[in-house]
């Protein structure tokens, strides 16, 4: 058995160790490229008081929306939420704390967390409520705010193909936040549609090198479409 075999036998094993109060970073944009089965497993396990870092928070009954049903999320860092009635209600009742974060800053905070960059400066959010209380500093004659990196106890990621060393490729725009999430988890769990032998993927075409991946599982996916638009 190779020490680089990241495969686990079950979703139960994939999310082993997740506990109440932890921070979970999730890939996905809307319902596209979300680790839907890993989220469902977090629901099954019932960990509470979670801090979730994700661009969105799913819909009623699917994706991260599932974790709202049993009030498992205490705090969320996201750029856009509230598409779901349950989220709206919990937000209005102050049952969930929402830290709205500009989408690009959110992606960069995850990348920084994985890359050992504790903080960076960006013009995004300067002069807005997002900049309140943050250090302001001028570069090239323009004010910027300091943003800090994010690291998660767990990162949950949805890939397309992976070899069992954990080298992952993503499919189309299901890539989105997944590569950054993968770098920023103390434990990174990736679910994919297909696992192949090491050597089958072109080394230069791997989006997430296996060094970031701790656990890997092959699953079946519903891949719900949020806004089905077709060309007649």
């Amino acid at each position, binding site marked *: 058995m190779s020490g680089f075999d990241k495969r686990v036998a079950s979703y139960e094993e994939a999310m082993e160790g997740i506990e109440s109060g932890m921070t979970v970073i999730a890939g996905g*944009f*809307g319902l596209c490229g979300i680790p839907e089965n890993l989220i469902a497993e977090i629901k099954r396990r019932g960990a509470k008081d979670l801090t979730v870092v994700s661009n969105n928070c799913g819909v009623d009954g699917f994706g991260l929306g599932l974790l709202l049903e049993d009030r498992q999320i205490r705090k969320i860092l996201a750029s856009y939420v509230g598409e779901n009635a349950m989220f709206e209600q919990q937000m209005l009742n102050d049952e969930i704390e929402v830290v709205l974060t500009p989408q690009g800053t959110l992606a960069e905070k995850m990348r920084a967390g994985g890359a050992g960059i504790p903080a960076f400066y*960006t013009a995004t*959010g300067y002069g807005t409520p997002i900049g309140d209380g943050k250090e302001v500093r001028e570069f090239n004659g323009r004010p910027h705010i300091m943003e800090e990196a994010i690291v998660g106890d767990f990162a949950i990621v949805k890939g397309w193909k992976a070899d069992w060393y954990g080298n992952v490729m993503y499919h189309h725009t299901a890539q989105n936040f997944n590569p950054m999430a993968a770098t920023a988890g103390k434990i990174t769990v990736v679910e994919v549609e297909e696992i192949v032998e090491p050597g089958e993927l072109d080394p230069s075409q791997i989006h997430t090198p296996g060094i970031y991946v701790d656990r890997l599982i092959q699953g079946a996916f519903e891949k719900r479409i949020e806004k089905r638009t077709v*060309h007649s």
Partner: protein
Amino acid sequence: MALTREQMAQRVARELEDGFYVNLGIGIPTLVANYIPDGMDVMLQSENGLLGMGRFPTEDELDPDMINAGKQTVTARPGAAIFSSAESFAMIRGGHVDLTVLGAFEIDQNGNIASWMIPGKLIKGMGGAMDLVAGAENIICTMTHASKHGESKLLEQCNLPLTGAGCINRVLTDLAYLEIKDGAFILKERAPGVSVEEIVEKTAGKLIVPDHVPEMTFVEAS
């Protein structure tokens, strides 16, 4: 007469240039894609990680893994590139997008924009809007000149929480096309049949009116 949504999109489209990489927001900005002049090529950037957004898919092409920033299913045109959200916002924040078109609630004479949050109403979030306004060197805001109740949206100072500070220099409303410079709106064009007086009346911020303000012209679709 005030411009229709389609006319607003048409007018914005005149700011396009061949070879422009463009990010179009939701609403009127999205319609701009319908008015790209023949023989001109423009590449649409969608901030979820797609450069070279194509048309909507046929039923056969439909793929849940291929969406745009509005979460609609789309296709990629030949020569498209797909990448991570970090890379996408590196492009945006780094000023590589040639033109961004987005809507707003309020714009003020110092180029501040409010477009994401109305206190007391449910706040869903800014998505990528703050990054877009901070990053694009070239932004056009589209909105109605005044609210339904007749209150100007072109202000001395924004009332609502900002999306970005000092980053807007071009606004297209249903009444006029304006530029922002040195703390004032400059009236550049007016909608067909709309008087300078009406625009002056509906602009709360400092407005500079040149001697001649040309009327926009639109060709009817054949």
